[in-house]
């Protein structure tokens, strides 16, 4: 499902960085719509993040995930968007994560704003981040079941209650009762 186009033009500075990352971490780079994207294996993400920060990408703009359900391996892509303020560059890294026990090492020790972003991914996708200092739900209530942004999670609806089946539906309705 992930779209890979042919390599076109790339900023010179970025090209050097990308080539280094490709060589060191076995990453595959692609460029679409002027955006450079690297696919990096999960176990190398921490080292890669450290490397990327060393190359002057001071800002982890965002971190998100995409669910390719029902595809299982990889089911998720975790996407990191880096910004270099000093060189005015952007770089994307994608990490494929399997659907069974999805987990990744945390990068919150390198980019501290990854802390909440990873909590959000745990909350919304159920992707576990090993070594995270505070992996709790962040947006949903603490006792929520399921991970809402997964594709197999329904958008949600409320069963209409009529007089003849009011009690019956009320019993299984997931809201706080008196």
């Amino acid at each position, binding site marked *: *499902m992930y*779209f890979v*186009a042919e390599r076109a033009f790339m900023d010179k500075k970025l090209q050097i960085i990308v080539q280094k990352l490709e060589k060191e971490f076995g990453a595959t780079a692609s460029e*679409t*719509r002027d*955006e450079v*994207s690297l696919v990096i294996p999960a176990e190398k993400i921490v080292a890669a993040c450290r490397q990327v920060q060393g190359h002057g990408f*001071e*800002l*982890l*703009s*965002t971190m*998100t995930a*995409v*669910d390719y359900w029902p595809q299982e391996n990889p089911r998720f892509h975790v*996407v990191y*968007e880096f*910004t270099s*303020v000093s060189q*005015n560059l*952007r770089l*994307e890294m994608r990490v494929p994560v399997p659907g069974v026990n999805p987990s990744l090492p945390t990068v919150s020790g390198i*980019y*501290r*704003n990854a*802390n*909440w972003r990873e909590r959000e991914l745990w909350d*919304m996708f159920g992707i576990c981040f090993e070594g995270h*200092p*505070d992996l709790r*739900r*962040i*947006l*949903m*209530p*603490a006792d929520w079941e399921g991970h*809402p*942004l997964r594709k197999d*999670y329904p*958008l*949600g609806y409320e069963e209409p209650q009529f007089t003849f089946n009011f009690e019956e539906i009320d019993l299984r309705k997931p809201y*706080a*009762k*008196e």
Partner: protein
Amino acid sequence: MPDIQEVTVDDLKHLVSERAIQGETVLLNMGPQHPSTHGVLRLLLELDGEIVVNCIPDIGFLHTGIEKNMEAKTYQKAEVMTDRLDYLNTVGNTLAYSLAVEKLVDLDVPVRAQVIRVILAELQRIASHLIWLGTAALDVAAMSAFLYCFREREMILDILEMCSGQRMMTTYIRPGGLWRDVPVEFEQAVRNFIKIFPKRVDQYEALLTRNPLFLDRTLGIGKITTEDALNFGMTGPGLRATGLAWDLRKAQPYSGYEQYEFQVPTRPEGDVYARYLVRVQEMREALKIVEQALDKLPLGPVRSSNYKFVPPPRSEIGVSMEALIHHFKLWTEGFNAPKGSVYSAVESPRGELGVYLESDGGPKPYRVHWRTPSFDNLQAMPLMSKGVLVADLVAIIGSVDIVLGDVDR
């Protein structure tokens, strides 16, 4: 009713200091219904007397599931929800979303539409900063600025209403251009605002900038360094107040921002007062952009004529069979975007507002992610508020300028 969960130190051992566990410091809830948390933000404070030892934000009270909802709607219909994210920067949200969709499907925008986009986005920036100025001043007990700020904001909302029919939730900027052209009175209204506003900013500054009470509450409070700010993903005026001139309008221009002359105001101090100065200066710079844009406002269409992606104007539907077919196709099935993903960001009043959009080739976005600036800015707040007084914490929350709709999405 389920039992109300009591906050115990045991659940939060990893977040509070050793002294809280021994009972030397006090845990105190601030919010989610507190007037100076600017919405439904809950802060769990660990206090040593009046001093904040730890500040643990708890968010999610305004979570609306917009990202999930957008996946179930076509590209055009999903846009309506973007206004509700950062409800003080509605034009900026629709602009960010439209730019992302345009990048995804490779759509050109007519020049007139681009210029009007810039005018409205900058007016919205001023309106947002006015809300911030009013409420942040109110937090440090400067009541009168609040009333003046809302008076001027009303003028901007009137202009938005004139264009779109809505004061706040405009959805005026659409992928491929604008919903419709601006009305005839638009130019006069904006000119009127340009004439009045500089004097009004002087008035706010006369009330606050050299006011000894305001200085006492803001100078040297909530300091953060550039390195820390970047590491926490802080962007926008908060980052610029640490001395780094990072502004996406300059660095990665969109919608023709490269044609306008404006400064990126910075301050080296990184405290609450610096953030105040940067934002006030930004209002003046935004007005400069509005004036330049209005002077060069060209005539022409305001919507792309690529009817595969943009609905044809109403007038054509009555006379053109093709236009009718396009209209029908677009409002029932929607358009198919090519496979792939884009990340596009704009400079919102709060910082980098980014949209990650992924398409699987169908008429609905496969994944929409909003990189909202308040989310990351709020994360840096505990660092700024270490060791300050509770009263100063209020000033810091105000200066970070969070919008909870933006944080919780």
